[in-house]
């Protein structure tokens, strides 16, 4: 393309913007996770993630993965979208990292495929097992993690975090940040387009760094002005240094049941993994 900097960034911007708006679509559809109280849902999913991190065996990880898929299915998330979001990029990247581990140089063990005899280079059974376990674990964690934003509006995530003891000031900044990310995104996107529109020549590396630096500088100034105006707007509306929140969601017996389910299942699976059960 004309210029790596602008095109790659534009792609990213659109992808990010798109994904987050797109994925809020399922937060309002009917489904198991959508119907749960946000705090309970987040804690339960984090418990599953921790359980996956603790597991060392492929079988346990497969069971955890199946639970994640089941939860996604029960929450009416189209499987194609879900799998795409989970398996593209992060686990694939982990898989690439794990490739060298399969060889006898990294993981000595029983030869599975011998590639070279002198020096002896082979793919080992232990190596493959290691690589699969590692990649599968990353994928399993991601499958649980994605369920949070797919099934919860972000304002509910932040209010839940507040209710869980994260200080009010942090929540306020998070909400402000999330809001202004979207506002400033469009600004950046147009800034990129305007440069692309005027870039007659491919920009060299140093020049595109320079352009990016100036763009970030302009963005900072815009950001700063916006911060000042927002302060005035908050002050004008009665802000005194703390923001009051209302937490509307209530925990029902269904939530308690789900929490109990996730704790018990995770505990059993981890104990099974360690060979206790």
């Amino acid at each position, binding site marked *: 393309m004309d210029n790596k900097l602008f095109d790659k960034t534009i792609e990213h911007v659109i992808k990010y913007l798109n994904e987050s708006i797109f994925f809020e679509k399922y937060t309002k559809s009917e489904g198991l996770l959508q119907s749960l109280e946000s705090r309970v849902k987040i804690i339960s999913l984090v418990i599953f993630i921790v359980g996956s991190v603790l597991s060392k065996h492929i079988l346990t990880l497969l069971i955890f993965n199946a639970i994640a898929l089941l939860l996604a299915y029960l929450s009416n998330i189209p499987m194609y979208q879900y799998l795409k979001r989970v398996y593209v990029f992060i686990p694939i990247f982990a898989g690439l990292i794990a490739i060298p581990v399969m060889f006898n140089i990294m993981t000595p063990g029983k030869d599975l495929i011998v590639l070279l005899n002198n020096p002896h280079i082979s793919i080992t059974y232990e190596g493959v097992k290691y690589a699969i376990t590692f990649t599968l674990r990353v994928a399993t964690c991601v499958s649980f993690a994605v369920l949070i934003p797919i099934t919860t*509006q972000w304002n509910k995530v932040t209010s839940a975090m507040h209710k869980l003891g994260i200080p009010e000031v942090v929540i306020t900044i998070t909400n*402000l940040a999330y*809001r202004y990310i979207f506002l400033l995104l469009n600004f950046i996107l147009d800034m990129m387009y305007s440069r692309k529109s005027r870039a007659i020549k491919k920009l060299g590396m140093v020049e595109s760094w320079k352009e990016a630096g100036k763009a970030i500088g302009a963005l900072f100034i815009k950001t700063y002005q916006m911060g000042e105006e*927002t302060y005035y707007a908050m002050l004008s*509306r*009665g802000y005194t240094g703390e923001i009051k*929140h*209302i937490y509307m969601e209530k925990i029902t017996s269904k939530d308690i049941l789900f929490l109990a389910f996730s704790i018990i299942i995770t505990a059993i699976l981890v104990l099974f993994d360690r060979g206790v059960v």
Partner: protein
Amino acid sequence: MKEIYKVVDVSYKYPNGSTALEDVNLNIYKNEIVAILGPNGAGKTTLLKIMNGLVFPSSGEIYFEGKKLTDEILRNKELMKEFRRKVGFVFQNPDVMLFNPTVWEEVAFSPLHLYSKEKAIEKTDETLKNMKIYHLKDRHPYNLSGGEKKKVSISCILSVEPDVILMDEPTSALDPKSRLEVMDLIRSFKDSGKTVVIVTHDLNLACLADRCYVLNKKVIFDGKVKDLFSLNLDELNLDVPDVSKLFLKLKERGYDVDIPTTIDEAVDYLSKIMPQKNKK
């Protein structure tokens, strides 16, 4: 009439030393709509910020309901609460006002600071219904249209039922439909007894006002909008309504005509003086 604002010899210098306002004097009375007109950079927004107690004049005084507005008063929690409830400020750019995750939380922001929780919830729902934007309540501000954002930002102010509403260029960057809606809202504010101060460079909007001030660092005109046309409007860089421009030009050509400011006035006026032969 009860005096709401009294601005006495107010001057303001920006931190970089340039002058925004110079010896400004004005009075605003209860249940008036007052327009403050002036070109870009005339200090209009700064004046509004001073009236909202967000910044303080470099010299001069400003009184709200007879009480002088000072930094000390606004640091007093009780007095500030009262002042913030009574006076609402609608910023020009709704994006700076909409910083909460959802429309509902946005409108509930001020009530939650000022009322009990139950009353805040009630007021918020009521305001959203009155403004006919209850269906937007769970939406995030980032995917609203410009007109919707403006209505939400006005709702944010209305949810604490202010007596005085300050508006900075309320119709700028709106499409024609939203512009008319905002103008109707301003009329309804007056009907319900509120006082409205509008800052603008759009004379069409100013035609709603009972009185207007023209500001260019200093107050250079003070009176009815109708009487404005005796000034050199081009120099002030104001948006003169096209209808008025048309009649001003006719006057230049030697016709002895009135200068209407709105389309309806012009239609009535033309109906009166137009020859019947053109009537079908």
